[in-house]
């Protein structure tokens, strides 16, 4: 099994979710994060004072998947999240050794 972590633009979330559903991935977990990278934050001006907002709001998606479909999931995320501009984000794939569905206690890929 693989644990996929994707950091994407907030407004691509719905598209990514739909792309994943189309590939049979039902479950995922999302959180709000702040990204630092090539894409620079903004300067906001309040009453003439400049405030440098270094970070950029992003969302992080976490998805546990069967190893067999990991590549296609990564690809799907890439396609759905891509706008071609700096700041589109990253996808990371980590090894996943175990999984449990809390409700039933099922283990392994059955739990996903």
């Amino acid at each position, binding site marked *: 099994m693989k644990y996929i972590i994707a950091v994407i633009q907030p407004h691509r979330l719905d598209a990514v979710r739909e792309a994943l559903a189309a590939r049979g991935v039902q479950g995922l977990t999302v959180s709000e994060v702040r990204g630092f990278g090539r894409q620079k934050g903004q300067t906001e001006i*309040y*009453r003439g004072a400049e405030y440098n907002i270094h970070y950029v709001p992003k969302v992080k998606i976490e998805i546990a998947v069967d190893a067999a479909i990991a590549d296609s999931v990564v690809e799907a995320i890439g396609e759905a999240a891509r706008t071609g501009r700096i700041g589109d984000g990253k996808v990371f794939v980590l090894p996943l050794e175990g999984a449990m569905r809390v409700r039933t206690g099922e283990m392994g890929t059955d739990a996903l």
Partner: protein
Amino acid sequence: MIDAGDTAWLITATALVLFMTLPGLALFYGGLVRAENLLSVLMQCFTIASVVTVLWLLAAYSLTFSGSGAWIGDLSKVLLIGVPRDAAAANTKIPETVFFMFQMTFAIITPALIVGAFVERMRFGAVVMFSVLWLFLVYVPVAHWVWGGGWLAERGVLDFAGGLVVHLTAGVSALPARHRARPRLGFPHDVRPPHAPWMTMVGASMLWVGWFGFNAGSALSAGADAGMAMTVTHISAATATLVWIVIETVKFGKPSMVGAVTGAIAGLATITPASGYVGPGAALVIGLAGGSVCYLMVMVVKHRFRIDDSLDVLAVHGIGGAVGVLLAAVFADAALGGIGLAEGRTMGGQVLIQLTGLIAVLIWSVVVSFIIIKLVQALVGLRVSAEIEEQGLDLNIHGERGYNM
């Protein structure tokens, strides 16, 4: 004789001006600081309101409005003793209690305005001590000079609702206070942006509406004077708002909400001293002047002098008040739609008197505030530790958080 109509309006005006501080100004300032310092600002406003109230009763009212000294009043109305329940305030048809209360709301908001200069870093005890001393050593004497029959009143200085007494004193006293308190950590580059601009807008709206009490209430009656004062106040606020919006649109292409409301406050502060003397056309000009001069000063203070006047007390209130005090002399002229200058007084003469008042109040406020702040520093210290400043005042000083979501 007490008139019910005048009294009705003045009680209402008192409520409006109190509303300007609680919660108006508190929200206006509170929205501009970090979330971790929100409660400290609200607490400072709330505490100043309470402390000033008690001191006003104990001595400050009497020292301001009782007696006929050129420099300071006397103590004969301490605790309002000797003021019969149904006595009318001098030259009015409202009960003296109402006059006492109305004036008290001015004495509350003035030191609360100064808070804007040292938010996010000053000790709570230092804020309270500064405010108490400042009330007695700056506000009370200046209010006596101008409104209590003191030497400036005798020269015929024009200050309808507090350009000198409120905005100039607060604005320039912010200078030494801020100077000694030094800038916030990270100023000017890494200061956090206003945590809740929406809250600043709500506070500004309350200030705007409450200002009707401030300026139209200063007529001390419900008639044509109050009506015109309200009208010019509103026009100046709206005009200065538009000035700010236009400048920001031209300069940045992005008219900001925080900018617009700052413009409104600038327009309101500027018209204040003139609001009882001028007509609607003049209000347009005063709004234009207040809006543009204050905009310029905010830039100058921040960028040229690199002063951390956190919430622009000097640039908006100090400068706005000063501009208004001078323009009052000009537009009070009957030829320009005003109520006319005193018999035999020329516009030049009146400008001179206004200048005298301005310079005297400026010097007095700066010097005395400087002494007070040094004293407070020596006695209790001004700043919190860098660690507390970083973590925010709310949790460390008040044991609470503004938000527990």
